[in-house]
């Protein structure tokens, strides 16, 4: 008996080791890609953020400055501060509004009888358009006096005003994003067992109660996934700035990623651009980690 058990134990251990090896082997391609295209560039960005590397050092080569680029960012770079703050607002507004709108649209398209696919396509197509095309469409909408909105409110100059530009762009971002998010909720809704609704009905729940006590909790995994996507989107979607405002007026619509572009390419300031990049990476990593760990425990996996 003893030996038998030992033998099985040994075989198990061997099998385990083999599967571990196999697992590593199968992970290898994605790990290489991750290392080359994600980890190495991050390391390089961290390294380059420690140098003064701009037009004035082009001939002499980069100069080591330690953490000076970071100190400057947080103590005296007004544009960075503004972009940082703008990004927070965009995240705080676009995430809940995209999610709310997407759930509403998903529920509606599920309810609608005739022309269901037409409605879905209508909601989804903004997500298919490239951001640059979207930016040009909305540039026309927002053109004062003779743009689409100009016919309704000729005095509105939303993109030329520091108080309104951010909100005008947020509306566009939500419009673009909500249809995409809706797709996840449609599939999430299809995963909910109809029996649960029947049970709720028997218990006397009305449709609002059914939503809050059945639909919404059952959509939790989708919501977590969607939150991460919309969170990263809030920091990633900057293409429209290039077309619409260049971050202006007075940097009122600037965002961190676009600031990286401006610093790195318009101004050839690689050192500062790298420092902002590192800050951006840290923000996104933190947000993802926090979201993952705090919400995971309260999830009902279907």
């Amino acid at each position, binding site marked *: 008996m003893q030996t038998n058990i030992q033998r099985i134990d040994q075989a198990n251990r061997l099998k385990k080791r083999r599967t571990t090896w196999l697992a590593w082997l199968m992970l290898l391609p994605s790990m290489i890609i991750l290392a080359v295209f994600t980890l190495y560039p991050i390391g390089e960005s961290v390294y380059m953020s420690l140098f003064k590397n701009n037009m004035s050092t082009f001939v002499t080569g980069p100069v080591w400055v330690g953490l000076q680029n970071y100190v400057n960012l947080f103590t005296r770079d007004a544009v960075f501060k503004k972009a940082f703050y703008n990004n927070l607002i965009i995240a705080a507004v676009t995430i809940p509004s995209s999610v709310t709108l997407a759930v509403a649209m998903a529920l509606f398209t599920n309810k609608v009888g005739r022309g269901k696919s037409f409605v879905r396509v209508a909601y989804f197509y903004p997500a298919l358009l490239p951001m640059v095309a979207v930016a040009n469409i909305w540039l026309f909408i927002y053109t004062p006096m003779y743009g689409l909105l100009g016919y309704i409110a000729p005095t509105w100059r939303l993109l*030329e005003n520091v108080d309104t530009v951010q909100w005008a762009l947020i509306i566009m971002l939500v419009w673009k994003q909500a249809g995409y998010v809706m797709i996840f909720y449609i599939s999430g809704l299809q995963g909910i067992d109809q029996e649960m609704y029947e049970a709720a009905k028997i218990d006397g729940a009305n449709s609002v109660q059914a939503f809050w006590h059945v639909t919404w909790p059952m959509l939790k995994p989708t919501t977590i996934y969607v939150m991460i996507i919309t969170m990263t989107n809030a920091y990633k979607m900057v293409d429209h700035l290039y077309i619409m405002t260049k971050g202006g007026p007075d940097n009122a619509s600037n965002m961190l990623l676009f600031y990286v572009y401006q610093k790195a390419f318009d101004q050839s300031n690689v050192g500062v651009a790298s420092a902002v990049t590192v800050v951006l990476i840290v923000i996104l990593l933190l947000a993802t980690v926090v979201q993952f760990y705090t919400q995971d425990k309260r999830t009902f996996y279907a």
Partner: protein
Amino acid sequence: MKKTFFLLLVCLLLIGLVPFVQAQDVIELDMYFPVSVGGGPDALITALCDEFHQEYPNIKVNPVYAGSYADTRTKVLAAIQAGNTPAIALMFSIDLYQLYSMDVLYDYDSFATDKAGQKWLNGFYDGFMQNSRLNEKTYGIPWQRSTIIMYYNKDMFREAGLDPEMPPTTWAELKDYAQKLTVKDAAGNTTRYGVQVPSDKAGYAYWMLQTFTLTQDGFNIMSPDGTEVFFNDPRTIKGLEFWKSLSDDGCQAPGTPKWSTTVSDFLEQKVAIMYHTTGNLTNVRKNAKFDFGTSRLPADTSYGSPTGGGNFYLFKGVPEEETKAAYTFIQWMTNNPERVAQWSIDTGYVATRPEAYETQRMIDYANDFPSALTARDQLEFAHAEFSVYDQGAVQDILDTAIEAAMTGTKTPEKAMQDAQIAADAILVDYR
């Protein structure tokens, strides 16, 4: 079966090699170029490159549209930093100091050593050479060059009881006329603004600011050597304050009207007067459904305008035959008065050589359309466009400050003082 396959593979490989074998005979040059006006100058540039290729079959210039002037600078700098230096580029004249500090430019004087070459180099308008020469050497050859001119809608002038042949000549007149040309509906909303001088960063805010400093006895906002800026000078602040007062007094749209829509605002008759580059003249002429006129910019104490536009640059670090080919192309483009004149007629840009204005086609065109000469006539009052070391960074500071002033987040004085401090922090490295 295996043999056929092998043969097929060899054939494919050989076919693949053909372009490389041929490429040795023809020198191919990629040329980045910017477009910042309407009316499709990109098609004209492509046509010119084709024409050149027909005359010089062994050189082929491939024009690569690179976006705005800033975008073109970005792309060329990125190419240089990646080790793919182009032999030639059509870029902003004001990129001179930045490119010079990077030590990537050839000067033309060392190529144009013979008499014909010298005659070519010295045959451009002096006004355009201000942004093209440095330390007695020529680094840029003027091509799509301009001054800012005032376009005005003559029909609206008549409607408002103003003489369409007497456009405003002073700041005070400009504001007075603009107020008369502004139209409001019954609810008090403005449906048409009197004047528009675009002030967005995506356009050329710093350039438009120069129209309000150079008209004060030719006061310019930077030193000729590109290491000092005068943003906090009372004259700069005064210019900006006047510009903003046009909005405050209701005859210019509030905020930062866009460079890119200013021409269509004018064509849609939503503004009566606009400041814009002469490079849009042919575009406006083709698309205006009303009678319009052009004139030099209104003066405070003097006439004045910055020059503007793009030059040809030659870059170091490429094979010699490519540089020679590029040099041949640039000379072909800019030396023939007929060609220079035709380019001016097709676009509205100023012909860069006086002799182009003596060609019959230019004389005929100007007789028919006198506005074709407005920008050239203004050249005698023209000064260098804003150009300093580390152009990208300093220009961004100034553009942002102008936006801050125009949108009211800072007073013009505060905006310019802050910009001065920020610009000095950068330029100190070059003094």
